[in-house]
Each structure stands twice: as structure tokens, then as C-alpha cells.
């Protein structure tokens, strides 16, 4: 895919994020597709950070190394990133720090502009980013007007003076680049003019929760999950609901279970450390058959790990992390659209199957904005699952209702607190049909079966999304944010004459072995692509009986995303486990 890469870098806490966001938003409005990704670390100010916006005329879902314009606010930015600048690319640097290019950077133009000085003139240092954006617009051949319109929109409520400063900054940058740059460096073909949406997975998941009727969200802040809380904070009160920040993750999940027991859609959201803390309570949700939704935004573990880095290493903890054996459904979206739909689905499945449903996101999916055509908001349906009617309860009388009645489907219609005669005991201890605690061995087996079979028997969510020719020799298997790099890798492979098929695993539990097995059987080379060190997805396949001599791994666990070329290289070169290294 032919795309243009624009990157801005500097110290953390100096507005790098918003600079990238401005560019991405305006590009989207002009009808381009964007994919933004950042490198940042677990500190508030200082330390290098950069933000790359990859621009295309069709969907972009993966990162690229190819940087065409690098905006550098520090020399460190140049030193760290110049190797990625393509032949003919431009490094746009602030005069203030006396920038220089390393000798190795051949074919790259250094364009030094007095960004700081121009910013001061336009209204203060804070305008530096806008100056840089204005200059970038010129280098990419984008209409300045679109940026000025954006500034007007964005800053209108801050007053005319702020708008004027921003516009002045944009113009100053644009003008300076026009004067001093060697012309438009990488003229983008005109965008199609259709403004789509630029969204991260976290944003989509928050909207999904709201759309699904989530009314209570209880959570404890943690990177990269906190934003889901923050996006829901203004939304839930629209319907009388609330986001509550709890004292820890143990409280958050248990509050969610309490609300679910009461018949209200609730959820929690966390990352690895929080997931570990929630393991006991997830079992409680399974045992009491209480609808419970949990989003896990995976980051690089274990322990504190690398909180701002990408990884897909919680799979086993998501599926098997609790003591004993309780049912869990685990969904794995790979795009913002899927993230939206999966959260909606999670709420429906949680109520239909009366069990915890976990949505496995990862840092890349959660945080990186990308252009999406739209979210399927009109397709949202609400399934509250099987409930016993108040009339039926009335007819039953007291002490008759069997909350955990054995049924063919394994699903027992539930009552909701407030319904007369629906009273029951929901307990994490083993219990009989009425909910009363019992250790009877026969009952035990029935209940264990019931809890698992309700999912195994009737789970009808497609677990594998596959694309590509059925007779392709290569099968790429992966999930989460790796779906973008895999799809692009397939294109690159095909360009080299090697046909490949991509199987995105959408459901991690119950594992869609039946759907995946024939794809694996049909391929000559099955490459399981995942962002972790131990090949958790491949092992999950093995444990579910999907194996074969041709199944191998490509692993990346250095905290960065897969680049499509890395997958391509591993497919072409590899045998056995391939690890992507620097």
C-alpha cells in the first residue's frame, strides 16, 4: 500500500500528541485515511516521544517505517528517527535547538525553521505545534484552509484571540516552508473529501458500552485502559448512570457483579495487573451466573512491565487465570469497528449466557487512532437473556422459583431483585437448583456441566474471520491489532507471488477449533503471528487440538507493533519459531 508517513517528535509533555491529532483530524476531513501511532513512556514530562501519522487513500491499519516528513522539536528526535526518513524525505526542525543531520542521513533534506520564534510571534511557545503543522501542510501539499477551519472549530469556545493566534501560527509555518523548502515534497493525491471518523479502540469501546445500555462502569485507573473510563464519564450520566472510580480493581469487578446481579448492565475495564487482581471475582461471576463485562487493554507485562508498550500476553490469564473451572467468554476485536461491536456483543452474551464476558484489547488497538468508515450503530440490538416473568413468579408462590434450574440449554431464566417470589441465593459456593449450598456429588457434576455446556452448546458467534484464497499455501493466524499488519503482509506477499490467507481469531474462548482446524489443514505453512514471547495463541490452538507440523510462530515482544514487512520476512525466511528482533 502506498502511503505517506509524517512524524513529529520531541519531549513528553510538550504537546506532541495534539500536534499529531490536528494533522490526523484535518487529513480525515479532507478524505484521507490515517493511522496514528506513538512511542511514549511511563513518565509525565521529559523523555522522548514521537507520533507517526501514516496517510493513505484507502484504509490504513498498520504502522510503517517509511517516514516522509519528520518534524523534530529536539535533536534527539532527529537522532532517533532519521534512519526512518526515506530518500528524498524532509526533516523539519526547529532552529531553536541548532539541529544537525548525522552523516549517515543521505538523500534527506534538513529544513530548519524558526518554529519557536514564529510561535512566540503568533502568541506564545504553545503555538509551536501549529507552526509545525502549517509547515507540514505545505510540504505535503495540503490546503491550508482546511487547517484554518479546524482551528476555528476547535478554538471557537476559547475566544477569537485564541483562534487568531492559531491561524497566525499555521500561516506563519506554511509561509516559511513555502519560502524555504524545496517545494511540495510529497504531494498527496487529493483526498476524496468524505470526512470519516478517526478513532481509537478505546473510544469505540466506550461508545459500544454506551450503545449497549451499559449504565454503570466501575474501574481503577491504569494505562492503557483509563481512557475508557474517561470517555464514558460524560456519557453514562446522560441516562442516569455513572462511572465510579473505585479504590482498586478488586472492588471494581465486584461492584460490576453486584450491579449485574441487580439487573443493570455494568462493566469494568483494566489492564494486566488489574486483570490478575480480578481473577478470584471472575470465578464468582461464573459460579453465580451473573452477567459481567470486563475489558482488558493488554500492555507489556508481566508485573508492572512496560506500561506504555504493546503486547498480547494476557490470553492465558484471560481464559484460564482463575482457580477452579468457571466459564468465560473471551472476545478479541482487531479494529475500532470490531471493538465497538464486540463490546455490544459482550453485553448481550453476558446476559444471554449469564457469565463473565471478557474483551481482550491491546495497547495498539486501544490507543492508536485510525480512520474508520463508520461504526455499526444501527445494527446494535439488545438481548437481555432469559428472565422469569413477574407473572410466572406470582403464579409460583413463595420458595418455588429455581434460579439455577437444570434446563436443556443450560441456561436458567433469572429473576431480578425487586420481583416478588423471585428471591434466591446467589453464591460462589456450589449450590443446587434453588441456589442453596450443597456438596452433593451428583448435583456438583450437573452444575459444573450446566455452567460449561450453556456456552459450548449454544455459542453461535463466528470465531474466525478469514480472508484470502482458500487454496493459499500460507495461512497467517492472529488476533487483535495484529490483524492490520497481517492483512497488509498478505498484500506484500502476494506482490511477491506468494499467496496467503489470513485467519483472524475473533473469539478466544470458547475456542473456535472447529472453524480453524480446516483452514490449518488446508495450508502448507501456518504462521501464528502474536505479540508475546511464549506463543500463547499457538499453545491455545494446541490445547484445543488444532496442531500440525506446519504450525509455527512469529513472535514479537519488544513492546512495539508488528510492521507488515516483519511478518513478510518471517514468512519468507522462517522455519520454526521466528522472533522479530531489532
Amino acid at each position, binding site marked *: 500500500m502506498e502511503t505517506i508517513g509524517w512524524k513529529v517528535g520531541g519531549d513528553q509533555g510538550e504537546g506532541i500528541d495534539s500536534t499529531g491529532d490536528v494533522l490526523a483530524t484535518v487529513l*480525515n*476531513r479532507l478524505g484521507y485515511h490515517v493511522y496514528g501511532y506513538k512511542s511514549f513512556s511511563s513518565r509525565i514530562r521529559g523523555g522522548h516521544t514521537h507520533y507517526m501519522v501514516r496517510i493513505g487513500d484507502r484504509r490504513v491499519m498498520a504502522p510503517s517505517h517509511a517516514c516522509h516528513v519528520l518534524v523534530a522539536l529536539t535533536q534527539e528526535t532527529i537522532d532517533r528517527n532519521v534512519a526512518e526518513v526515506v530518500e528524498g524525505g524532509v526533516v523539519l526542525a526547529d532552529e531553536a535547538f541548532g539541529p544537525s543531520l548525522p552523516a549517515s542521513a543521505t538523500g534527506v533534506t534538513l529544513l530548519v525553521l524558526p518554529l519557536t520564534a514564529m510561535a512566540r510571534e503568533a502568541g506564545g511557545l504553545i503555538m509551536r505545534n501549529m507552526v509545525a503543522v502549517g509547515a507540514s501542510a505545505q510540504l505535503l501539499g495540503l490546503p491550508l484552509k482546511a487547517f484554518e477551519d479546524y482551528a476555528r472549530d476547535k478554538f471557537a469556545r476559547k475566544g477569537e484571540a485564541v483562534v487568531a493566534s492559531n491561524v497566525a501560527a499555521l500561516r506563519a509555518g506554511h509561509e516559511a516552508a513555502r519560502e524555504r523548502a524545496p517545494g511540495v515534497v510529497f504531494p498527496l493525491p487529493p483526498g476524496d473529501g468524505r*470526512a*470519516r*471518523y*478517526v478513532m481509537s479502540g478505546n*473510544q469505540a469501546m466506550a*461508545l459500544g458500552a*454506551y*450503545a*449497549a*445500555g451499559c*449504565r*454503570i462502569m*466501575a474501574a481503577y485507573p491504569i494505562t492503557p485502559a483509563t481512557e475508557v473510563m474517561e470517555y464514558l464519564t460524560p*456519557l*453514562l*450520566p*446522560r*441516562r*442516569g*448512570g*455513572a462511572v*465510579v472510580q*473505585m*479504590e*482498586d480493581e*478488586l*472492588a471494581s469487578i*465486584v*461492584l460490576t*457483579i*453486584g*450491579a449485574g*446481579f*441487580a*439487573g*443493570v448492565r455494568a462493566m469494568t475495564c483494566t489492564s494486566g495487573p488489574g486483570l490478575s487482581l480480578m481473577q478470584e471475582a471472575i*470465578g*464468582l461471576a461464573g459460579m*453465580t451466573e451473573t452477567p459481567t463485562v470486563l475489558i482488558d487493554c493488554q500492555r507489556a507485562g508481566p508485573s508492572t512491565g512496560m506500561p506504555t508498550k504493546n503486547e498480547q500476553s494476557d490470553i492465558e490469564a484471560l481464559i484460564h487465570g482463575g482457580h477452579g473451572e468457571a466459564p468465560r467468554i473471551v472476545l478479541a476485536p482487531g479494529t475500532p469497528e470490531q471493538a465497538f461491536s464486540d463490546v455490544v456483543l459482550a453485553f448481550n452474551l453476558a446476559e444471554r449466557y449469564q457469565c463473565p464476558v471478557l474483551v481482550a484489547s491491546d495497547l495498539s488497538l486501544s490507543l492508536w487512532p485510525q480512520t474508520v468508515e*463508520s*461504526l455499526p*450503530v444501527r445494527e*446494535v440490538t*439488545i438481548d*437481555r437473556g432469559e428472565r422469569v416473568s413477574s407473572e410466572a413468579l406470582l403464579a409460583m408462590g*413463595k*420458595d418455588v422459583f429455581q434460579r439455577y434450574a437444570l434446563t436443556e440449554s443450560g441456561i436458567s431464566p433469572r429473576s431480578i*431483585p*425487586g*420481583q*416478588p417470589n423471585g*428471591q434466591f*441465593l*446467589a*453464591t*460462589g459456593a456450589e449450590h443446587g437448583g434453588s441456589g*442453596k*449450598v450443597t456438596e452433593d456429588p451428583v448435583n456438583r457434576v450437573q452444575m459444573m456441566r450446566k455452567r460449561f455446556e450453556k456456552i459450548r452448546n449454544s455459542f453461535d458467534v463466528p470465531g474466525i474471520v478469514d480472508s484470502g484464497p482458500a487454496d493459499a499455501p500460507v495461512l497467517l493466524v492472529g488476533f487483535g491489532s495484529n490483524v492490520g499488519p497481517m492483512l497488509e503482509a498478505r498484500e506484500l506477499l502476494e506482490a511477491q507471488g506468494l499467496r496467503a490467507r489470513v485467519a483472524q481469531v475473533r473469539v478466544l474462548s470458547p475456542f473456535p477449533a472447529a472453524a480453524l482446524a480446516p483452514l490449518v489443514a488446508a495450508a502448507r505453512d501456518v504462521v501464528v503471528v502474536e505479540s508475546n514471547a511464549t506463543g500463547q495463541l499457538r499453545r491455545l490452538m494446541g490445547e484445543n487440538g488444532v496442531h500440525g507440523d506446519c504450525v509455527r510462530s512469529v513472535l514479537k515482544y519488544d513492546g512495539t507493533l508488528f510492521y507488515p514487512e516483519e511478518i513478510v520476512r518471517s514468512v519468507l525466511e522462517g522455519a520454526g519459531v521466528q522472533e522479530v528482533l531489532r
Partner: protein
Amino acid sequence: MPEVTLQDFKTAEKSWWCPGCGDFGVLAALQKALVELGLAPESVAIVAGIGCSGKIGNYINSYNLHTVHGRTLPAAMGLKLANRDLTVLVAGGDGDAYAIGMGHFIHALRRNLDITYLVMDNHIYGLTKGQTSPTSEHGFVTKGNPAGSIERPVLPLSLAVAAGATFVAQGFSSNQKQLTRLIQQGIQHHGFSLINTISPCVTYNKVNTYDWYKKVLFNLDDLPDYDPRDKVKALGMLHEREELVTGLIYYEESTAEFAHQLPGYREEALVHQDLTPDPDELLKLMEAYR
């Protein structure tokens, strides 16, 4: 609706408690309080902890959620936020409340959501067969502490007052009248109510027995000019009397309850809402992402 009777709050379940266990009295007082308040069983939700005490939910005909050890309070918070029409009670042991549950306890107190918490305090771990609990006295001997406990006991009442609680009381399983009244007051209090309840374990605690308590407990009802609205005085009194008192210790008359302060607060309970989504609203919300 026919009038509620004690029978309505009973279940067919036979109790698993040892004969003479203090928990019987707590259960009885709770059932009486609910009846006297005229509450319908289906409008009562009880969240119970793990322990002998935590079995209380098995014997009371209401909506019962028996959680994992120490996590009752957040569960109750979820329940109450979801359905503010419910009377939400929490019951559990001193270990459940003050050992593994201590963090949630302090936070629940300062949040002041309208929940009533009955801690069934026997100064010991009953269900796990007699270990030292956080309220066990310094020097208390158990298998795990053959030379006696070396920790200062948790002082739940002082802690609660210091933590910002708005209703703090202590009851005694043997004083049914007072305990029933305290539970009623707790339920009626518009905010979080703590009722630490002395509930002797006749099997494992041979020190803090009924007789012992009867001797040492001072009944605040006998002190007509005690003013439970003075925080510093309450703390002083608790200190002086080493928390060996029963009655209403501290309360704040009109206080900000948690749910009512929520920006989205509505009179109607969330559980009654129709969840049908409004795609147009969603599309409008999406505009922020262009």
C-alpha cells in the same frame, strides 16, 4: 399487599451454625427489623461475606448475594447504584470486614452510599476453625498464636468515625431489642450505616463469651445525655471505654449521600430503564471523532 410477617423472611434452610452461636441473634434481630419496617422480602437485598456469619443470607428470604471473602461492600455498592429502590444490607464476619475487607470498609464509609453494614464480630475466625481475627485482643491465644496475639486489635468504631462515617453503632446479639432498633435506624439513615455487632462464637472463643460481654459492655442507652453527634467526643468516649459500648455511637443528621451527588442522579432506579439504543444520538456522539 398483605402485611409482612416474620415468616416471610424465613427460608426452609436449616441453619449450619453451632447451637448457641451469636449469629442466631443477629439473624433474628435483622428479620425483626425488616418486618417492623414493613419491607417486602423482594425489596431487600443482602450481600454476605465468607465465614460462619456469611451464611446469614442462606436463612433469610430476600435477594441474597454471597460474595467472595472480603468483597461484600463493593458488591453492595453495585447493587444499590443499580437499583436504589432496594434496601441493601451487608453482613459478614470480623475477618471478612476488617482483615481482607479493610480497604473496602474504609472507602465505603467515606463514600456514604445508602447501605447498612452489619459486622458480626466474634473476635475470631469461626469457619476456618479458630484463628486470631483483627479484633482479637492483644494476648489472645489461638493455635496460630500460642503465645498470644501480638497485634493491637482493630478498633472498628473509632476507625469508622475517623474515616468519615455518618452512622456508627454497636449492637450485641443478646440484646435483641437494642440491636433490632439499631438495624432499623441504620436502614432508615440516609447514608452508610455501620453496626458492629458482638456475636459470640461459642465453639472457638472461650474468652469473649456472652458472660464476659455482659459484664464489660456498657449500654449507651443508659447514658441519656450522650450526644452521638459530636465526633471528637465520640472518639474520646470510645477511647476511654475501649469500644466496649453498645448503642448509637455517632451520626450526622443531614449528610450528602453518595448516589444523590452523582451528576446523573435520577429518582427512577436504573434497573427499570429500557435500553433500546438511539442510533441518532450515537451518530451525533461520533461527530466528535471527525
